[in-house]
């Protein structure tokens, strides 16, 4: 598996660290069902996922990777700072 880092170019999976689902952080401090979802609940889709990865052994950037868990196709890689987590 290879990921196209926007800074370094196409690199081997070994250089990357997998964090988990890329979720939007709920607004505000007050507890709400959205916080439950953000902290505990995850989808396990057979299809397209959007995950956070870090190019740990490369430039160090946090990335948002869209990929398909069924076909293993990597659909897109973007810098987390630009795409928003």
């Amino acid at each position: 598996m290879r990921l196209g880092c926007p800074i370094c170019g196409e690199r081997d999976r070994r250089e990357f660290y997998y964090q988990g689902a890329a979720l939007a952080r709920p607004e505000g401090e007050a507890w709400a069902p959205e916080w439950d979802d953000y902290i505990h609940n995850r989808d396990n889709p057979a299809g397209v996922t959007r995950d956070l990865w870090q190019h740990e052994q490369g430039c160090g950037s946090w990335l948002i990777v869209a990929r398909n868990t069924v076909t293993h196709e990597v659909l897109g890689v973007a810098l987390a700072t630009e795409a928003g987590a």
Partner: protein
Amino acid sequence: MAEFKAQTPCAGLLPVTVGDLRLTEVVPGRMTSLAPYRGRVAALSEVMQAAHGVAWPEPGRITGQAAARALWFGREMALLIGPDSDESLAAHAALTDQTDAWAVVHLEGRQAAEVLARLCPLDLREAVFAPGHTARTDVAHMAGSVSRLGPQTWQIMVFRSMATTLVHEVEIAMARVAARQNSLM
């Protein structure tokens, strides 16, 4: 009274020669990491040019020559190798002395790229990774920096604490590439 003597990271381990492959330690003058403040890359590059004659390196590139080199060293980070960093740089970037922090070795030889291919997951073909290119990558499971200084000359850097492991790993890879070469002849 105890007397202290500076030791290089690979003291007593290098040089190593296997066939026409050669691994040597390099002790560069000063190494300083440059982390430009937000939006100051262009200004930093100008000051670097004026003080050291090297421009800010784009991702994956090296600027300058042996006397003063700037190595791309990660996201918005470069490593100035050679001279003491000029004070004027401090206005545009955070400067950190890294001189004793890294083990720096050069690998030379006709099959140097084949040796490196056993240690890191990069595409090392000259059309992709040409002289003047650099990468932060995985070197035998260590966080390292790999640079191509010439067609058959590579610079490998890892944390100083990993110097013995690096020499060990590269030496084994050199022996295996050489053995393969011998068995094919």
